[in-house]
């Protein structure tokens, strides 16, 4: 998973897989909808984090679906 200056840069990258067009997501939205919001990311320093990570992750797949316009590329197994 890498950062690029824009979608055009990601698509132009020599290592870009043409099958991964839906693998491009805006960084600002990812931060707002995922990383700023869920304990999965904000509570990693809690001593009992690992015991609670499943609960802390509730809602993450839905948020990822929102950011990706429900792309199957971002659907968890």
């Amino acid at each position: 998973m890498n950062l690029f200056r824009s979608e055009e840069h990601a698509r132009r990258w020599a290592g870009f897989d043409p099958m991964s067009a839906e693998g491009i997501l805006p960084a600002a939205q990812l931060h707002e909808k995922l990383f700023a919001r869920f304990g999965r990311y904000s509570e990693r320093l809690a001593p009992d984090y690992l015991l609670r990570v499943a609960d802390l992750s509730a809602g993450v797949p839905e948020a990822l679906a929102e950011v990706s316009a429900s792309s199957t590329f971002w659907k968890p197994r």
Partner: protein
Amino acid sequence: MKEELARVYHVVMRSFVKTGRAPHYTDIAREMGIEPESARLLLRELTSLRLPNWLSPGTDLIASFAPFSNIPNQYRVTVDGEQRWFAQCGLEALALGHLFPRRTVEVASTCLDCGESIGVMFRDASLLALDPSTTVAHSNVPLADWYVDIGRS
């Protein structure tokens, strides 16, 4: 989930935050007051869970432990002006603000296409700056396949 695994996780995460590097399993053993072999086995168990944490292949050395990388890469992390850390990847680079409460965290990266800079700045959950604002994260691998080979995702 074993409480011992949660302790190992916590020791590793605290070590990364404090030093910028992953602990060796003997460091984990000392910290937890257990035998080195017990720590080694717990670390192997921890990194076999479906979490974005893994060992360097064929070793007992932590290679990456989200959101940090133990291997220098293009995601240089600076906290209050000190560059000591590396982010695991472009996605986890966006999650680093939480690990350094009430401190300014900057990620300086490079676009793999053009070699120009990408900059991100956080304080706790707030994104203070994203330069350029058009920055995107990209994966070549669908999320459902990430754990087939997490290091390549």
